[in-house]
């Protein structure tokens, strides 16, 4: 199983909390909007950080998907909770 982390740019308002919870996984662009560095974290610890970032985003812009089918995400349903 692989996991995909994405930031919905239409929801991101640059609170930058994701970068606090998921350093190395999310970087901030020139305007402070979040950007996923590596869309496919594989280590379990990394997934945990990504989920924490997803839970902390006030706009729900960080989404973590299970990517069993390799089409981007299976069913587009975010996986797990903290």
């Amino acid at each position, binding site marked *: 199983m692989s996991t*995909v982390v*994405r930031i*919905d*740019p*239409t*929801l*991101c*308002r*640059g609170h930058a909390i994701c970068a606090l919870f998921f350093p190395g996984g999310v970087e901030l*662009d*020139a*305007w*402070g*909007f979040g*950007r996923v560095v590596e869309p496919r974290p594989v280590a379990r610890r990394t997934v945990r950080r990504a989920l924490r970032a997803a839970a902390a985003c006030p706009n729900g812009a960080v*989404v973590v*998907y299970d990517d069993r089918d390799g*089409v*981007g*995400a*299976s*069913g*587009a349903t975010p996986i797990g909770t903290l």
Partner: protein
Amino acid sequence: MIDLPELRVPPAVVGATTGGVATGTASAGAATGTADGEVRIGGLGEPGTVLLSGPGPGSGSESLAGHRARWGDLPGATGADVDDLLEASALDGRGGGGFPLARKVAAARDAGTAPVLVVNASESEPASGKDRALCVHRPHLVLDGAALAARALGAGAAAVHLHRGDAGPASALARAVEERRAAGVADPRWVLSHGPGRYVSGESSAVAAYLHDGDARPRFTAVPLAVRGPSGRPTVVTNAETVAHLAVVCRIGPAAWAGLGAAASPGTRLATVTGAVPEPGRVLELGGPPTVGEVLVATGVPAPPAAVLVGGYAGTWIDGAEAWQTPFERSALACLAASPGCGLVGVLPHGACGLTETSRLVRWLAGESAGQCGTCVAGLPRLADGLEALAGGRFHRRGLRRVEALGASLLGSGACGHPDAVVRLVRSTLDVFADDVVRHLAGAPCRGADHPPVLAVPAPFLPTAGPRPPEDFT
């Protein structure tokens, strides 16, 4: 392989002489499946055309009777047959992305629940006129193709999405739908949709979203629309020209259709020529495919221009002499980091300034952002500022490096491909007009400063109150 219905090739193709600058002798070869590399260039009703064969532009919208006389009835192919034909023809999307329709259809069918079919005829690209020409003059070819695509998907209804306020295609399609209903054609239920005329509203996720909830803005999609659209149902959004080709494939067979083009780019392709040409906005059908030079000669441009904008207003500039030799098809253009896109060919004459032209395009494109993604809202106007400063000779090396860095930070930042396309346009500008960049940086007067605008830019879209980026980001 399935049994094809009796091969019906429009008389214009069989034994036709090709128009314009055609090379080689015309034969029925292409129409019967042997790719002879014959170059075909023709406008509406001109010899050598397939989609555009039939009556000329003066005849208005083609009637069902006229359509049937040339093409016969809607083929009785089943959904599985259409699937095989899509696969065998390798029909690629003609809205800009070039994604194979067979793969979209397969993804939607595999996803299970009732798929939605949307034929995108909204043609948001301001200078492009091919979908409009098809819908106005050959509405039954578009509807035939849509009906066949709906069969392949197992969809009971098909939407044709148009731009609000453009009465021509809307009335032609509405009339065609009435004719078909009266004639009892085995059609899906037709839905004609009229979306707002904004640039990004023609993007596939925006079209799908508009049909779902009336908000015609691109959506962030974690999975392809064909797997799961905004409504939760698999949504296949495909271009009007693409389905018109499908209607032809299902009649003349995939081999004959593919033979009208090259191995890497099967079939014919519609193009719109604009800019410094005798007749801007002329729609041509290209087979073979011809080089950009051959296309331009056919439209009355005898020698290589300064540069050619390919693929759309957010397309790619190519040096005129280089473009002249390049076949107008995907793989050849890809070598120049360009794509046929929606088929737009914009001609920049000698004496005009590519930097000035592009700065106007970028300013307009920045205003066409849907205002959803912060980086696009914040970054595109800055990119336009940079281009204007460069075009106006108010720039130094450092400013140019800032524009390049700005471009890099915009790539991949949006929910749709809008910022990426604008950045690619800017990069091709700095590359193709490198000499002009040097002159402008040196403070030399712009050679094209007094040249009238070449590529017409529509009035800016009136911005609505949208989300603002944080104030302190700079």
